[in-house]
């Protein structure tokens, strides 16, 4: 039972490559070990980027100051760390984690590599919700109203998607096409409102669409955390059901999983997470599409590892992008949505070129 190294290496990532002559059992054991290691490393990397993010900023504190301000009340520095930097970084971690997680859930339940919160209309619905509030409550209105509008509309679009799927059969094509149709509808409505709005309103709308991590305070972080993290245990528990869904509906049925039900609540959970992510921060779309792909390229398609992995990768990307946005053109802050795409797209294309496995 020696695994043939040459055959295995033909299209390998280094995690599938068996240099030594291993038995199948050993090779599998090693693979599980690698996947676990990846999760641990990503978690450490996330903590690392968070630490860097804490130390970087316009006020010019050195890491020692930051450390002291974290634990002791040092006046101005203390409030900078606790009221500005920490909330911002926690928000970045949460939103990155949520978008990555939601993206990987959307991709597997719809069995489509192009699926993500933003290609499915949930994002543009949230945008429209925010725009509606800005237009009707006038400019300069409260953050919570805008967030509420964004949240309501993203749930609404998910509800429409689910209702249409329920009326027909909940096939992935139905959900995807409905999602894309909704995306166009909400984009058109947003454009209409921008066309009608005053200069000030249009300015605010454009600003909201850039995405920003600085709008949130501690209370908002609590709300976002509840929405993003509460579906996580259930999603992880269904990891193997997601694995089976990757082999098609019939195959899942024959192995004891109801694919329609799984898809229904998967879309609901992923939409809730998405809504939690974007209502306080605006459009930071790219992470949800890319993080699952990056993770899949590295550790494969086992959702027990892919779901948390995509979340961690998303968090790392977003924190890194935030650091970039605050330092590249300091003291100007480049909006996070823009930086994410600037950093993410070249990196993603690089990975696409470099990957050895063809799978869609």
């Amino acid at each position: 039972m020696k695994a043939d190294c040459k055959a295995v290496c033909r299209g390998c990532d280094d995690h599938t490559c068996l240099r030594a002559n291993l038995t199948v059992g050993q090779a599998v054991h090693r693979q599980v070990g690698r996947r676990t290691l990846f999760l641990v490393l990503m978690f450490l990397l996330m903590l690392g980027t968070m630490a860097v993010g804490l130390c970087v900023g316009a006020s010019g504190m050195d890491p020692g100051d930051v450390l002291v301000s974290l634990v002791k009340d040092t006046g101005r520095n203390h409030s900078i760390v606790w009221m500005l930097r920490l909330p911002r970084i926690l928000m970045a971690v949460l939103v990155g984690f949520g978008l990555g997680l939601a993206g990987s859930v959307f991709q597997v339940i719809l069995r489509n590599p192009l699926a993500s919160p933003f290609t499915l209309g949930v994002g543009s619905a949230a945008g429209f919700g925010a725009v509606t509030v800005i237009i009707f409550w006038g400019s300069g209105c409260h953050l919570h109203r805008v967030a509420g509008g964004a949240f309501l509309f993203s749930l609404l679009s998910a509800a429409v998607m689910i209702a249409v799927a329920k009326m027909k059969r909940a096939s992935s094509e139905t959900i995807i096409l409905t999602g894309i149709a909704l995306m166009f509808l909400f984009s058109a409505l947003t454009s209409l409102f921008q066309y009608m709005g005053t200069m000030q309103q249009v300015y605010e709308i454009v600003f909201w669409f850039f995405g920003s991590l600085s709008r949130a305070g501690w209370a908002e972080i609590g709300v976002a955390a509840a929405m993003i993290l509460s579906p996580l245990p259930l999603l992880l528990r269904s990891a193997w059901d997601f694995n089976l869904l990757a082999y098609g509906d019939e195959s899942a049925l024959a192995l004891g999983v109801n694919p329609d039900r799984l898809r229904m609540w998967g879309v609901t959970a992923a939409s809730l997470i998405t809504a939690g992510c974007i209502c306080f921060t605006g459009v930071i779309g790219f992470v949800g599409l890319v993080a699952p792909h990056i993770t899949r390229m590295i550790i494969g398609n086992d959702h027990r590892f892919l779901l948390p992995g995509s979340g961690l990768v998303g968090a790392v990307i977003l924190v890194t992008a935030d650091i970039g946005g605050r330092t590249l053109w300091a003291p100007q802050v480049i909006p996070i949505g823009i930086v994410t795409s600037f950093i993410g797209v070249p990196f993603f294309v690089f990975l696409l070129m470099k990957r050895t496995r063809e799978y869609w």
Partner: protein
Amino acid sequence: MLEARQIFFEYSGHKVLSGIEASVEKAEVVSIVGPNGVGKTTLLKCIAGILKPTRGYVRVEGKDIRDMARRGIAKQLTYMPQSLPFRFPVTVFDTILSGRRPYFAWRPSRKDLERVERVIEEMGLSDLAMRDMDQLSGGQAQKVLLARALVQDTRYLLLDEPNTGLDLRHQLELLETVAVLAKGKGIGVIMAMHDLNLAARFSDRIMMLHQGRIFSTGAPAEVITADRIREVYGVESVVICNNGYLHVQVLRCAGEENRNRPVQTRAR
């Protein structure tokens, strides 16, 4: 015994199956034959509980599968599809392991892993275990599908054209594996087949479907006759017994006397 009684199935008003009776005992191999679109796959899916028949019921050991949980059914019946669609990279090992899913919730046990390893070894798939599914040839992929069906460890196997796309040797190997399994472990097998010769060779019983009904059922030699083949497939043929194996030699489409004449070799 796995039995399907009075199965009717309609697909948006179009009748596919009307009143099919099918059953398989332990250690028995039953083949369903019939032309394209006659409902072989539909029947298998009805029996597997993937499709709900409009009328009729399926029983395993006397128990109606409608009263069983999905997972309970998956511990009794294995359905092997013609192929699996792959969108994302999955290794051969993970694919086969997914067949054990009815037995574990989150983490496969030592026993599950060992079962998978043993089947991989028995079927000679060790070299491929860590490869991605999309790197396999058609024959290899089909073997993986069968391995996945085997690790599910159920008393009944439903195979949908298990030898599609395989060359001669792989067809024989695969069907022999199935036959040995049926006789050796007392597993009941129902399979949809296109190749009448192989169906006759490896089955205890054959069910021939025609226009959504059972046209004939019984031992291979009783069912596969030139008359029935003409009626069901619209093909003129001769059925020969050679070396103890039934052999269908296809002549021409029925009602087209002059076309497709055999090539005459000219005497010099």
